[in-house]
């Protein structure tokens, strides 16, 4: 059944190039169907595509982790489908393809298959990056994305050579000494580019700040979340935590660099892009602490971040004249910024708190310090933008479409609710964390107790 979540959007994507405009109208229904499938599914589900059993064929795995990640991803696409104004003509099919590939990326239990889906995602992302005539940024992304894809492929091949299979559970079940380190290096390079880690991912600001509201909104939320899931899955479940310390250092570097670079931006979108980089770095650093609390915190924070970014990015592209006439949008924007900074009562505070406390109990005193530094810098520039936008004199409103306004408002209220009553996100992220840490359970459910 769960393969339908990949097949149906793909089918509609194929059909939609003949029946133009179909994709736009079909998108919400497809996503709803996906969510319906998720609701009737009970974890763990392992579906062997083509009927070939686990280490041989390709298996789709819906365990707790992928369940919630897919759910979040689909909800994001649902929200996106409700604001069709930001999807330009022709790009609706790309969104469908992106939905396909993101679902596939999360559900697949096969390394090479995940490579294929990463490449589809990347190809769609290159096209999205081009959106609004940004060819140079997109081209740069394409080159570095292509290189990282090659390295990911090399990592996959090394795993195959080591374990004799491409199945994640099977690879996780084998141990192959020094080769693991080589695989980990290759995967760090392969995933680091998509996960926006500092020295690897220079493409982000040029792509996110191209002026399109679609590109950062979808790349910075759903895709980032899926990549974070994949990072946790590969480095913790499959590779048993090899080279997490390298990821940790890269993550911390990313946090610092992202925030500092954001400080002097005179374009809001670019500042937000850097904030996105920094948050991704924080999430990766927290994942790399490799314990239940830090992983929970990491995914919790990632969810808060994507909720906030789904508010910030569309508004940032639409609003030019300030919030004087668009108070509701301004309210949502401010709530999202406060949540990102991590003020108490807002959602981001809870996740940062969790990350900090888990870091301390793991005996790590550096991550909290970096996090605090990052929060200070982030507070400085985000509040600067808030103040600037709130007090910009304007007589006309920005013509924010009503559905976008409603969505950002709902999301901002969600952020407030999460800040006070975090169980909604917390349970999901705890499930994700548990399931990612439970290597043996994963192997058993995929390989059937071999």
């Amino acid at each position, binding site marked *: 059944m769960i393969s339908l979540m990949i097949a149906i959007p793909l089918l509609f994507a194929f059909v939609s190039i003949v029946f133009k405009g179909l994709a736009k109208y079909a998108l919400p229904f497809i996503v709803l169907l996906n969510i319906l499938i998720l609701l009737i599914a009970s974890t763990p589900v392992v579906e062997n595509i083509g009927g070939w059993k686990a280490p041989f064929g390709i298996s789709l795995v819906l365990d707790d982790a992928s369940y919630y990640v897919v759910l979040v991803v689909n909800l994001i696409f649902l929200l996106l489908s409700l604001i069709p104004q930001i999807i330009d003509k022709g790009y609706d099919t790309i969104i469908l393809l992106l939905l396909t590939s993101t679902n596939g990326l999360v559900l697949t239990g096969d390394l090479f298959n995940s490579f294929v889906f990463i490449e589809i995602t990347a190809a769609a992302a290159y096209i999205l990056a081009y959106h609004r005539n940004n060819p140079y940024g997109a*081209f*740069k992304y394409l*080159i*570095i994305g292509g*290189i*990282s894809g090659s390295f990911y492929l090399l990592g996959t091949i090394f795993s195959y050579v080591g374990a004799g299979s491409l199945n994640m559970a099977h690879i996780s079940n084998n141990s192959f000494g020094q080769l693991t*380190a080589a695989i980990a*290096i290759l995967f*760090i*390079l392969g995933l*680091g*580019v998509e996960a926006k880690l500092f*020295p*690897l991912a*220079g*493409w*982000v*600001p*040029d792509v996110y700040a191209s002026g399109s509201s679609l590109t950062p909104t979808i790349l910075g939320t759903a895709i980032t979340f899926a990549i974070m899931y994949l990072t946790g899955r590969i480095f913790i479940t499959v590779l048993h935590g090899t*080279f997490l310390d*390298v990821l940790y250092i*890269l993550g911390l570097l990313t946090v610092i*660099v992202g925030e*500092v*670079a*954001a*400080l*002097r*931006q005179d374009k809001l979108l*670019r500042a937000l892009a*850097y904030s996105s980089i920094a948050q991704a770095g924080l999430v990766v650093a927290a994942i790399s602490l490799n314990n239940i609390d830090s992983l929970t915190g990491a995914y919790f924070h990632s969810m808060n971040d994507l909720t906030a970014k789904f508010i910030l990015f569309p508004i940032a592209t639409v609003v030019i004249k300030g919030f004087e006439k668009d108070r509701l949008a301004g309210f949502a924007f401010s709530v999202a910024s*406060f949540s990102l900074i991590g*003020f*108490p*009562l807002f959602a981001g*505070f*809870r996740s940062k*708190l969790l990350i*900090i*406390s888990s870091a*301390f*109990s793991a005996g790590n*005193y550096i991550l*909290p*310090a970096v996090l*605090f*530094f990052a*929060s*200070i*810098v982030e*507070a*400085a520039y985000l*509040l*600067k933008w808030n*103040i*600037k936008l709130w*007090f910009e004199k304007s007589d006309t409103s920005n013509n924010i479409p009503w559905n976008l306004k409603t969505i950002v408002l709902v999301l901002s209220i969600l952020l407030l609710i999460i800040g*006070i009553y975090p169980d909604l996100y917390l349970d999901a992220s705890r499930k994700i964390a548990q399931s990612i840490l439970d290597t043996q359970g994963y192997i058993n459910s995929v390989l059937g107790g071999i």
Partner: protein
Amino acid sequence: MSQLLLILFIGSFLVYLLTRMNWIIGVLANIGLAIYSFYRLFTFKVGTSESIFSLIVNQNGTLVYSELSKFFGIISLIVAISVYFFLINWLEKQKNRAVFNFFLALITASTLGVFFSGDLLTLYIFWEIMLLFSVLLVQMGKEDSKKAALNYLTISLIGSYMYLYAVFMLWNRYGTLVIKDIVQKISVETSIFKWAVLILIAAAGIAKSGIFPLHTWLRTTQGSSPDAFSAILAGQLEKLGAYMLVLTVAVFPSLKMFPVLYGGIPVFNYVLIVLGMISILIGTLMAIKQNDMKMLIAYSTVSNSGYILIGLATMDKIGFAGGLFHAFNHAIASVMIFLSFAAVIYRTKTSKIDEMGGLIWKMPLTFITYLVGIISLAGIPPMSGFISKWMIFVVLVKKGMFLTAAAAFIGSVGSFLYVFRPLAGVFLGQLKSKHKDVKEVPIFMLIPMLVLVVITVFFGVIPGPVLNMITAVEKELNIQPLEHTMTVIKSSVGQWNTLTVFTMFAVGFIIAFILYMVFPKAKRIPLTNQYTAGEFLYNYDLYHYSTRFYAFFERLYEKHPSVEKLYEMFGKFFKDIGEFLNRWFYSASPSAYLLWFSIVLLAIFWVRW
């Protein structure tokens, strides 16, 4: 207490809605809330504790009502109520009234929350709420208040994140955040841990109350925030810093935790005293230079926070009481001063000293408020401000800390200089022609100012009620209580009878008044004649200069090193790094991306293979 906080938080939303409908009703509702909580402060029993929502697993937030919370709660509510009264007229000229009122109510609520907090994390949460909304209020002021707000935010966040870091160090060590439990356990820790924790916690207080290394935000923030809010900032929010300092020096038993250095003062407290000393000097010297009257008082706040810190850090029965009493006095006095400034600005639309003058006849009651305020602030006998300063002096002399005493003395003398400057520049001298039609401010603005005058004079004569509260606090914190009666403060070097002093002053005043009445009066001449020696004045021009008042003195330290500039340098440094990264890394060519990519690969390989 949780009930009161809930009422206040929900009430503030109500205030928002009411203000949207009619702003006067909103202000009244705000006053009502403040008065209600003032009343409730006296109904709570000291020592009760409640638990509220939990933030970390297995860790309930707790609220505890102690003498300390009562004392600080009363200070901040007095400040709040008087400023809210002031708003009844003042708010008319403010934009976004609903939001203004809403934020004020939230700030009061969260301030009380801070005082009630029984564990460190709850304290942090209320602290941050207060910080966020005060930042949002600050930027509603003048044009440069936007930048000031960011400055304020950054420095406050540095303090509060340092605090949070310490909180988690403690949490990690003990698994509890309740202050009472931690206090019992911490005295046996290794000294590095103790130092780290206490310095980090003190940082929050230092940042908030404007002690030396983190004082730079005060000038711009108080200078450019909305005028009525400056009063709140000085009277209510900076006392949060004092509260935090009390927490570090007294609630955490610094006497038990650290070895005694000199005069019975622990090493840690001595470090704080040095910081306080530097603050007094910097605050005084910089205040003398300011031309903007609000910025001037902002620097005086720095120096007065220094007094408070010194008093508290001595941990002596008199010194500690003096610190607390000075916190009280400074809150009241600075509110008076800022309200009178607000009144002046309300009428004249400027805060530059050299653009004003001669307002004494136009706004006499405002002048009286200001006069009493500065007398108290500068520590001239009949007002309460003198008593607290005297107590601090006494303890410094007793302990033989002459260097600190000298600094405090310089600060006192300096304070005469700087408070006189607005007095002369704004109220005395020649009335500017554009201010000819200035009237006294409306009645609701006068009422709180005059009530505060009465309070100051009253506690200057009969400091007993406040001292009673202070001795209760001292008892609670295991410090020997101050010996005092209603009007007499006893110390080892002598005693101070406020009533006698007041009587003496009153008698002197009456004698002077009688002499003034009896002796023949000099001929009254127009003010302008003073400048022209009786020549006829053709044009009404400016003859009264109040710029560069103390130029001769300022010249002595013109080229002083400035922490402010240092921070600016840091800010610029980070920005430059950001620009560098943006330019040479994030906007680079694909080759550069790949270069970094390869470097990471090589580095990982180099280090780990």
